[in-house]
């Protein structure tokens, strides 16, 4: 399989569990998961309407892997990239998804006002919370590694091992697929 364009959600999944990322790259969705995604979309449409524009940005990773960032809303005037999420606040996967977007924007040469890099923000309307997300140099190095690993994973015929912590799988939407 040729490597797919890698998006932010996959990067988030990879951080959670490579097997989950592999299943997703194969189009093996869990129903609950697709419902959660649909609910997420509904959330973005209903919350924070002002001055937001959805955008699709493409770039290429240092190793040549094509990247794509589907952005919920970029507030160009304020120089803030927003990502709306439902559920638990500040999950590792969410944070890395936003860092990935900031990275793609930087690679694509998109900047905020005055040429400053954009800042990231996670919005949790259901929790009435927001979390700032920054992209540091070390994060960029890690993202480059994750993207290379994802591209290699996509070419792999069999799924990666299950997550080493069984208890971790208890809150994963793919549990029934992995252990059913």
């Amino acid at each position, binding site marked *: 399989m040729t490597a797919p364009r890698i998006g932010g959600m996959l990067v988030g999944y990879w951080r959670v569990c490579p097997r989950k990322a592999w299943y997703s790259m194969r*189009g093996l969705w869990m129903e609950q998961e697709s419902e959660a995604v649909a609910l997420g979309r509904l959330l973005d449409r209903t919350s924070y309407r002002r001055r937001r524009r959805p955008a699709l940005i493409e770039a290429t990773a240092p190793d040549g892997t094509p990247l794509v960032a589907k952005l919920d809303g970029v507030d160009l005037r304020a120089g803030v990239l927003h990502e709306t999420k439902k559920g638990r606040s500040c999950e590792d996967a969410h944070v890395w998804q936003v860092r990935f977007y900031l990275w793609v924007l930087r690679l694509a040469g998109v900047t905020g006002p005055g040429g400053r890099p954009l800042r990231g923000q996670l919005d949790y309307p259901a929790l009435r919370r927001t979390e700032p997300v920054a992209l540091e140099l070390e994060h960029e190095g890690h993202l480059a590694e994750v993207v290379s690993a994802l591209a290699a994973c996509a070419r792999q015929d069999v799924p990666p091992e299950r997550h080493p912590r069984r208890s971790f799988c208890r809150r994963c939407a793919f549990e029934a697929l992995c252990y059913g």
Partner: protein
Amino acid sequence: MPRDHYLFSNGRLRRRQNTLWLEKATEDRVPGVALDDTGAPSGTLTGEKAVLPVEAVDALHCFGEIDLNAKLVVFLAQQRIPVHVYDYYGNYAATLYPREYLLSGRLTVAQAEHYLRPARRLRLARAFVGAGLYNIRRVLRYHARRVGDEAPVRHALAVVEREAARVPEEAAIPELMAVEGRARDAYYRAWPAMLGPRLAEVFPFDGRQRRPPSNALNAAISFGNALCYAACLKALYRTALDPTISYLHEPGDRRYSLALDLAEVFKPLLVDRAILRLLKTGRLQPSHFEGRLGGTYLTETGRRRFVEAWDERLRRTVRHRRLGRHVSYERLIRLDAYRLVRHLTDPADPYVGFRAWW
């Protein structure tokens, strides 16, 4: 949790905002008499309505003669609700299978690959037969302990065990089918003994006859198998599996032949146990069967009772060992479909088919 809904009356099903409305009609049809060919719905609308909020519906089963229009079909498809249609006799007729929403090209390719390569196909076909026979053994064992005259049940058990031992040896699908057929035959022949002398007299059985079912037991088995097929098809619809590519059955035996493969595993557990229980508790009586067109069928009341018991059974739960929590019998079918997905994506994780442990 959305559930399956079973519509027995005639009438018209419509969309009213986010609700399904069944406008009921009188039962004007005369059974066995040629239906009118004017295209008009049978019966006249009575004004009686039943309302179903769409979120509460997982699938629909139409046993009555139901009129529906394109607008409703579009709505049901958007809501991902499959609709199973049965004919007047309760035979499965068709499914309105909504557009797929979980698709994986790679999985479909893997499914086809496993069909085309004989060794791979055989491995899966064996798993379906093996699990089916295993579950038949569970039913026999369960009942062997509960009947006075154990000999016929013990005999059937021996035959099924002998045939099951051949599953890993047979090298072609037709032989595997024959193994399954012989085992099932011996199994069905033990039914009168499992029912006990009193019921065996009321429900005589002379082996399995499908089209048309020759007696009450055959009618019940056929009806139950149709429900099981529909349940398996729904489970497949909720996964990215393509229901038309199958292994034990030839694709084309039925349009959704993979549902037949899966049903092989679950019929003993879901259908056969339900029937034996319905008869033993007297919930199904001889009066719930009628002769039509040279066959025997469940009456509408009989079907209602069967469906009630079926629905209860599907929602009964059991503690799942690998997941470590309670799951419904219905969910077990979906989990087996997931196992099939795992098999197709990872040879180190073979599908063995669900095996009841109780």
